[in-house]
């Protein structure tokens, strides 16, 4: 270090230990940029949180339902006029014959508990109970004719407005404009809750029950459409897995480099990006208009979803076939196996965990898909009939879980919104289970070569 060089060095503008303005600016920009990233991730997670919270907060209520538990006197004079307890004769008494009995039973509870209410006749009780209660009592009576003449305790669904009141969905201010229920009914409901006659309980019928007509949201359940989804998933599994695996094996192991192979590959990647509603149009035109398969049948839904899921399954199957090292194939060929044998005896079993994982994820995707089902008619009617047997399960009109949720979301009564959210919880539980199984399969059987 010489004096000359010292003199030639211009005075340092700043020092590394103290930031100058420009460095400060750059560091601030750096900080800001990082904050944007954190904010973006925070926004994504916030949306996820809001979504989950609103699903849970709006949907959990659907699993609880308000029930009225009252002893009903099964009056022989009304239910069995001839007195011979013959179910065939008693079946002539329609649900209209049972309604008054239930109303009287509830009114008897009003008097027994000494509840002061301006509603002074049993007819006024009608607004409290679900229209399904009479059918419920009738079914029990027809199944056990000997009960006539006795007083039997029934647990009946309360009307949807009563349920809504207890869940906070129906406010007292709204009731003034509602012709289904009056404020007095709500007072009575409060009194009944205190008396322990009306209570919210877990409602298994929401999970396994059938859908109900538009005016009875308290009765609607997801069970039948769940079976519809099950039958569709069977079709998808039976068709998409073998076809998808066969197609992937061909493309990955045997296909020569030619035009046809290129065409197939381009087609598969394009099909994966075709909007799902277009598959619905395809299903409508080909399976229903052209092949005259029945509308709304889970078989048709399954076929459409199969075509939609195939690209997903093919892409993941090819990836897992590709992951099997060539040395396995070479060893098999070296021992005298044919190419087909080496693929089917060695490569395919090793790729199986990956294939199954991909298939489960494809199935989960198909389970949640709604749009194509709308076009082949799986909405717009009420799925009340359980399929009896396999053929009926595949061919008879049915709904599917997401289509049922859509159907509920469209109905006018806000009580159905709660049902729709509840249905979403069930649907998401299924999807979560499938994805967890896929993850476990991958963790358990994944092999690194």
């Amino acid at each position, binding site marked *: 270090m010489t004096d000359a060089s010292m003199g030639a060095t211009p005075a340092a503008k700043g020092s590394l230990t103290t930031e100058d303005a420009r460095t400060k600016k750059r560091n601030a920009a750096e900080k800001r940029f990082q904050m944007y990233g954190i904010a973006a991730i925070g926004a994504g997670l916030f949306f996820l949180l809001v979504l989950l919270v609103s699903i849970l907060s709006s949907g959990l209520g659907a699993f609880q339902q308000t029930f009225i538990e009252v002893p009903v006197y099964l009056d022989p004079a009304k239910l069995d006029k001839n007195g011979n307890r013959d179910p065939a004769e008693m079946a002539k008494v329609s649900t209209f014959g049972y309604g008054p009995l239930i109303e009287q039973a509830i009114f008897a509870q009003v008097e027994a508990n000494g509840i002061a209410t301006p509603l002074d006749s049993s007819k006024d009780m009608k607004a409290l109970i679900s229209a399904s209660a009479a059918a419920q009592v009738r079914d029990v009576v027809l199944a056990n004719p000997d009960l006539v003449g006795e007083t039997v305790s029934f647990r009946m669904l309360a009307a949807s407005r009563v349920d809504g009141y207890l869940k906070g969905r129906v406010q007292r201010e709204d009731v003034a404009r509602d012709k289904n229920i009056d404020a007095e009914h709500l007072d009575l409901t409060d009194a009944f809750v205190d008396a322990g006659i009306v209570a919210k309980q877990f409602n298994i019928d929401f999970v396994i029950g059938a859908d109900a007509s538009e005016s009875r949201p308290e009765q609607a359940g997801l069970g039948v459409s769940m079976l519809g989804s099950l039958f569709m998933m069977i079709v998808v599994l039976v068709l998409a897995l073998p076809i998808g695996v*066969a197609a992937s094996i061909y493309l990955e192991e045997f296909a020569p480099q030619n035009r046809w192979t290129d065409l197939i590959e381009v087609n598969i990647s394009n099909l994966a990006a075709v909007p799902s509603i277009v598959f619905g149009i395809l299903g409508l035109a080909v399976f229903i208009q052209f092949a005259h398969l029945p509308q709304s049948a889970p078989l048709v839904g399954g076929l459409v979803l199969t*075509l939609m899921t195939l690209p997903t399954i093919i892409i993941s199957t090819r990836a897992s076939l590709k992951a099997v090292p060539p040395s396995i194939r070479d060893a098999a060929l070296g021992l005298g196996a044919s190419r087909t044998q080496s693929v089917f005896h060695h490569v395919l079993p090793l790729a199986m965990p990956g294939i199954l994982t991909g298939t489960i994820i494809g199935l989960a995707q198909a389970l949640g898909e709604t749009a194509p089902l709308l076009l082949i008619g799986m909405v717009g009617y009420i799925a009340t009939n359980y399929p009896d047997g396999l053929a009926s399960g595949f061919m008879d009109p049915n709904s599917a879980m997401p289509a049922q949720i859509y159907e509920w*979301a469209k109905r006018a009564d806000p009580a159905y919104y709660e049902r729709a959210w509840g249905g979403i919880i069930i649907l998401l539980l299924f999807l979560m289970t499938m994805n967890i199984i896929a993850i476990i399969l991958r963790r358990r059987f994944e092999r690194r070569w």
Partner: protein
Amino acid sequence: MPVLWLVLAVLGIALVGYVLGRSLALASAGGEIRNLHSLPSYYGSNVAMKAAVPALLLLVVWLIVQPFVVNGMVSGMIPESEISEGSNLGLVMAEVHRTSEGLSNAVAAGIIDEDTARNPGADPETMTDRLKDAGQVVTSTLTAPILAAAQRYRALHDSGAWIMSGVVLVLALAGLIWGLRESQAEFRARNTVEQGIRALLIAAASIAVLTTIGIVLSLIFNTIEFFRLYPAAEFFFSLNWAPSFSGRGGSSELGIIPLLWGTLYISFVALVVAVPVGLFAAVYLSEYATPKVRAIAKPLLEVLAGIPTIVYGLFALLTIGPILLSVFGDDTVGWMQGQRAVMTAGIAMGIMLIPFVSSLSDDIINAVPQSLRDGSYGLGATKSETIKQVILPAALPGIVGAILLAASRAIGETMIVVLGAGAAARLSLNPFEAMTTVTAKIVSQLTGDSDFASPEALVAFALGMSLFVITLGLNVLALYIVRKYREQYE
């Protein structure tokens, strides 16, 4: 279900063939496997394949072709006079199908006997009454030609089914015998079976092509049919969407422009939500985040992609809509009238697309080689300067491709817009107004009334065709951009 039984019978023959072929081959080698060309099971499979595959193929082809042949033979029987004003041959033929089905059902229910059902001299009016008594749906009073056509249709249908069963079974047996004759020790059974397997694999792979052909054909035929009833120029350029629900009146206005406007507007809002969030999330996750944060945040974001669209639809309608309404509704600024609006659907769709953008961009950013980053740091750039001036430009084609793919997703999305966007077709700039989209109109035109002959229903196919072309075009463009402008790093 005779077809099911037929299939089972063919499979049974194939199974017998497997056992026979295997033992025959073994016997011809004197029970010594070493003398066989292939393993014994290949001889069995060869016979089973030859028995089952041609027979089942014929069955499928027959099932597809027979209705056309029968229809062709029957439709010649219907005189011009039967086709009334405003009707066409297809509707009359549907009536014939219904009647013939009604006859079969009535016979099956035991209400009329086979001879009555086949009696060519039957009085149409009494027949109508008897069918109605049997609970069969017969819309109007049957006329003599329709009844005769229905009877003929039924007879042809039945005999066709019998001939089919016969031919299929004979073919299966012929295949069985052919295979059995081949089951000799020196026959190269494995090679034959493997060729068969190869053919099956090719067939499975070709289903993807068949699906595309099916989509294109079903769209094209119905679109052409639509343009025959409705001028194409009006469909593409009319500014009005007002289908009449009365039926075949000429008063419907079916212009695609308002629907396209709604679609693009909603997709634009969705991208405005999804692209910044997704892109910044991807940058942070791949450049800044510690492995621990990444391991938690990335899968959580991807949960958003696994949620079915119906959930987002409900979320839009019942959560986002009311929130927006309380902020922009009549109580405050009065921009928004109802829960359903472009914003409602757009925000929900944007949330759905966040993981789509972020994971695609994440992959692309990760593919930028480390040496570029190191070079930039070496020149004194900060991390954010490196990202903005080196990494993002290098990853740009891929990111543009990802955004285009997301746009194609948004345009084809159905459930969110069906629930969240509204039903009225509008050309408006206000994002808080309800608008509708191509997909939502496809759903509303094709659900409910199932008269596929009216322009109001057929327009859905033209809309579907437009949607298919647009999304396909975007995908191809995305792939092209990625391929063309991708930097090659070695």
